[in-house]
């Protein structure tokens, strides 16, 4: 009898109301219908307008888009910028995480704020600030002016992932390694780095996706260079060949989804192993 009542009270959750379920799934639909629509439009045989529903379906625009040198150039530039920005962000983010994970020191909160600021402030401010200092220093716009801007706001993503992992690694592991005669560099290489690996990979993938998609800071820090988002923005403001834009949009969805889903699984697998 007692166990019966206990069982009844330990289950406080009744099912969700019909209205709540409807509101939830309507919200999820709202978030995903636009993305589904983009994919549909890429196969539309109509090339002049946004008419819905598409009068017919075709794959010909993929072939047309792949022929376009400007699309390839933009994609190549975006890849290179994202690779460099991610590389710099992984190094700086890991160092910052190493410094801030377990220590308390004067100015710690200020450093933390400094890392978050580039994405907390509106992109237009980060962008115009960088532009005004390039201007003041008389640095001409180049590949590197874009990379510097991107790396600055990518650091925080790597930092967040690395700091969360570092806090979960037991300090006993490091002490054990040192007791067994490894020096600090060996401990880092053989003990810390393998533990950090998947967190850095997840952070790096997110940083890559963030850089690959960034448009606001890029418009301020690029000269004549066209990254894929800049190409896309030009098409949005002055549409030229809509079917090509549709196809590029689908490619961009694919190129950002892959690292995001991969990063999700990497961090989730880590949490699962912690719960076990």
């Amino acid at each position: 009898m007692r166990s019966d009542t206990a069982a009844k009270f330990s289950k406080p959750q009744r099912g969700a109301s019909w209205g709540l379920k409807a509101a939830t799934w309507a919200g999820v639909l709202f978030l995903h219908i636009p993305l589904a629509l983009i994919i549909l439009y890429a196969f539309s045989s109509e090339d002049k307008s946004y008419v819905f529903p598409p009068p017919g379906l075709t794959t010909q625009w993929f072939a047309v888009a792949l022929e376009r040198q400007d699309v390839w150039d933009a994609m190549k530039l975006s890849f290179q910028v994202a690779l460099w920005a991610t590389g710099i962000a992984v190094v700086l983010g890991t160092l910052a995480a190493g410094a801030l994970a377990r220590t308390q020191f004067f100015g710690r909160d200020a450093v933390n704020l400094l890392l978050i600021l580039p994405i907390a402030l509106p992109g237009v401010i980060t962008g115009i600030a960088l532009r005004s200092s390039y201007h003041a220093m008389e640095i001409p716009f180049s590949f590197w002016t874009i990379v510097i801007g991107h790396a600055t706001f990518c650091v925080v993503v790597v930092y967040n992932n690395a700091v969360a992992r570092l806090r979960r690694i037991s300090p006993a592991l490091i002490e054990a390694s040192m007791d067994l005669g490894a020096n600090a560099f060996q401990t880092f290489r053989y003990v810390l780095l393998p533990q950090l690996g998947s967190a850095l990979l997840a952070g790096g993938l997110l940083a890559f996706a963030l850089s690959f998609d960034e448009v606001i800071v890029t418009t301020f820090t690029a000269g004549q260079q066209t990254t894929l988002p800049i190409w896309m923005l030009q098409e949005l403001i002055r549409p030229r060949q809509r079917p090509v834009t549709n196809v590029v949009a689908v490619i961009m969805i694919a190129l950002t989804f892959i690292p995001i889903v991969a990063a999700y699984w990497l961090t989730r697998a880590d949490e699962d192993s912690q719960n076990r």
Partner: protein
Amino acid sequence: MSSLTLPPPRNSLADRLSTLLYTRRGLLLALLLAPPLLWFGVIYLGSLFSLLANSFFRLDDFTGQVVREIGFSNFVEIFTPTNLDVALRSTVMAILVTVACVVIGFPIAYYMARYARGPQKALLYVAVMLPLWSSYLVRLYAWKLLLAKEGAISWVMQSLHLQWLLDALLSMPVVGGSSLSFSPMGTFIVFVYMWLPFMILPIMASIERIPGSYLEASADLGASPAQTFRQVIFPLAMPGIAAGSIFTFSLTLGDYIIPQVIGNSTLYIGQVVYRQQGVAGNLPFAAAFSLVPIVIIGVYLWLAKRKGAFDAL
């Protein structure tokens, strides 16, 4: 791990350096912090100060060159009716977008936190995360397709014989326009869509932290579900709402691409900054005007901090 063998101890340079770092923790900390601090201190803070310095300069009307004299003319110009209008419109838009994100996001967050379990919860989490991280421009482009005169929303309205409703909405003053993609209403919808995930996730996190026993206690004390919601759940979810609102508010205030692509010619703060800098070449005024959202966000953060937003981030 068992196959791992370490080289025998040597008194190498690496060893000695290692001992030095181990015994002097301050040095290790300094070495770790130096590269990120140099990067952020020099490049980022340097840029922000350069921006601030620029806001005190002015543009010579005849030569179009920046005059490097300290003055406050830019700040005076911010208070002209046109510019105040832009600042006010952006702030109102940011508040409306934030409220709409709470209204749409709260049920989703509540369902995710209290009812969804196992695979369903993972599915919902990914469903909210994917739009958050996926390409901003692609999602904007999708809305251009949806909102266009011949686009999907028009088609749905026509199929449901509700064209008159859409026309009535579009003929309204201030918010209406020639089509959804050329009206402030369209701008509003797209803002809400873009930032909604930023609202859902922190609310979800704060509801998950409410112990189930609170709800039982509330029911035991005779509260109806509606009363429990109003007096227990909602106040405890407030830090999450405040945290989410920081994103929705500040992102709306600074964005210049959404109103440029979707909307009529009404200007928002970000657009004024962008145009002054780019088209007009007036970097000093753009710099001064970019301080407007910083000040508004500063005030907002101060208010949000009092609501406990930073505990929920």
